């Protein structure tokens, strides 16, 4: 299947129908997209802490090598944590995928151009830090490949996997029903869903 991508297709395809997947989103656009794809207990939305999504995904992936972990973030958020790509490459968790929804814009702050609108190639950056499986995706077929890799992450597909999905200029506004914005609540519901109610005692 080939065709034009909309940014919502990314979250819908990667998160929407994968109940076991552990997800950390960036703030703003990717949180809205993931929320629209269906709010779920095993998604931790960032509402702050910009630049930390990949690091958080790494800590989660290392703590649960038996589970698949997806970081779904934007180009601006990823740019703020570029060093974390080198850290992910060095730690080399086989169960971690990082997918960057690259609209080349800072969507939450007025749509200013990000560095990826120019010469910055995040997939090349990730590859250069040592993440060998680093892809640049610009059509629906490429998204299907990423979805396939995510399904077998840590088993047939050895991570870390990094993918930039290009959706230039596509903005995402907040959904009619916002995702929960209490970080403590998000933490408790994630841990309870993952480990059972005993962790809250």
């Amino acid at each position, binding site marked *: 299947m080939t065709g034009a991508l909309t940014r919502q297709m990314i979250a819908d395809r990667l998160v929407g129908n994968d109940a076991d997947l552990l997800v950390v989103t960036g703030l703003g656009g990717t949180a809205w997209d993931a929320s629209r794809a269906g709010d779920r207990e095993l998604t931790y939305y960032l509402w702050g802490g910009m630049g930390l999504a990949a690091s958080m995904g790494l800590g989660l992936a290392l703590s649960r090598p038996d589970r698949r972990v997806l970081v779904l973030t934007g180009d601006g958020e990823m740019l703020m944590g570029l060093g974390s790509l080198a850290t992910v490459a060095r730690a080399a968790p086989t169960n971690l995928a990082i997918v960057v929804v690259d609209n080349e814009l800072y969507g939450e702050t007025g749509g200013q151009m990000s560095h990826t609108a120019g010469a910055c190639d995040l997939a090349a950056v990730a590859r250069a830090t040592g993440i060998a499986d680093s892809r640049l995706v610009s059509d629906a077929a490429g998204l299907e490949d990423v979805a396939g890799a995510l399904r077998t992450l840590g088993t047939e597909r050895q991570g870390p996997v990094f993918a930039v999905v290009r959706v230039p200029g596509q903005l995402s506004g907040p959904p009619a029903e916002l995702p929960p914005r209490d970080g403590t609540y998000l933490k408790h519901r994630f*841990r309870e869903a993952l480990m059972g109610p005993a962790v809250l005692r």
Partner: protein
Amino acid sequence: MTAPVPLPVSTPVTWPDALYDTLKEVGIDQIGHVPDAGHARLIDRCEHDPGIAVTGLTSEEEGVGLAAGAWLGGQRAALLMQSSGLGNCINAIASLAEAGQFPLLMIITMRGEWGEFNPWQVPLGRATRDVLLAIDCRVLNVHRPDEVGDTALAAARLAFDSSQRVAMLLTQRLIGTKAFR
């Protein structure tokens, strides 16, 4: 100017072993660190422990994300850094760890406070405690080797049992002042 003679350090240096023993006692599964001479022995011991995943960070704020992620997954992480590295972490501690009430155990080696040779280390060394308190972290100081184990235990309990952001400051008098030769 000529390099200064190093100030005396308590010998033999066994406090990193006490720290390691306490981290094991409280069930630390992950360590995040930016290398620091004061933490060298502890890092080495953790790297030789198959029960601890040691993650080398490019910058200290990554460790705050790492620790929060570890907690989401049911593990306990500790961060090792130098006081200058704390400055790299402020937004991460406040906006991620504090906002989500994540346990955070930071073991910080101090610079710039006791016979410091490098003036570039002094400003943040002097501000470390105030900065931590301003973002609502708990601060526990360690001046003597025999305090290390007990303080680490108290810090870890405060962090993991009471969901606090806790900084254990290993003072420069304990660690010894860095010497240039």
